[in-house]
């Protein structure tokens, strides 16, 4: 099968499809996605919507930048995703980058995407507690920015 995306035509198979039964927060109509590589070896990927092919969210392996990230899933989330310890789980954070300013990149560590890779289902969760933020600044502010702020 092929999909026309903002990156051009993408080939995919039925088994590549990830389903988010509840959709993403604020985007409930988008339930089926593909994960596309950004570049080989990069921690970044695109969560490409199948339902709305013009939509692709930039996502990142959070541990590439926050080595001690330790999201605590609620039991209900694990049930929803049919996650058991042995199950292959993947956790991704959406990444935002202000135009032209990669150093201003933030990761949403409070609302990660949790995916059961073997069952091909996923869910965006909101973590409890005050440990993580929605706009976690990944790179330290440069000196000039610190002065400006």
């Amino acid at each position, binding site marked *: 099968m092929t999909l026309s995306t903002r990156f051009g035509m993408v080939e995919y198979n039925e088994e590549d499809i990830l389903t988010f039964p509840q959709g993403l927060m604020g*985007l409930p109509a988008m339930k089926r996605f593909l994960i596309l590589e950004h570049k080989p070896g990069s921690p970044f990927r695109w969560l490409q919507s199948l339902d709305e092919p013009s*939509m692709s969210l930039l996502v990142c392996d959070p541990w590439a930048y926050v080595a001690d990230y330790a999201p605590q899933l609620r039991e209900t989330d694990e*049930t929803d995703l049919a996650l058991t310890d042995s199950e292959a789980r993947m956790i991704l954070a959406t990444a935002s980058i202000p135009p*032209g300013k990669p150093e201003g990149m*933030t990761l*949403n560590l*409070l609302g990660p995407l949790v995916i059961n890779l073997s069952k091909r289902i996923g869910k965006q969760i909101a973590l409890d507690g005050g440990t993580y933020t929605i706009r976690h600044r990944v790179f330290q502010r440069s000196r000039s920015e610190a002065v400006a702020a």
Partner: protein
Amino acid sequence: MLVLTRKVHQSIVIGDDVEVVILEVRGEQVRLGIRAPRDVAVHRKEIYQQIQEENRSSANVDPSDIPDAHIP
């Protein structure tokens, strides 16, 4: 907006399968218990709105702005 008055341990039901229980009232804080089916997502509104904004913002990133590796 429908307005109802409830006491602690009382609840309201929404439709057939959503129940909201008042668990505790302490000063300005109210603790609620929510029973809802699995396909009904329940979130704190301000968190939901901010995550929604981040989702949209992550869909607007220009691929050329993505860092290759760690920026020192």
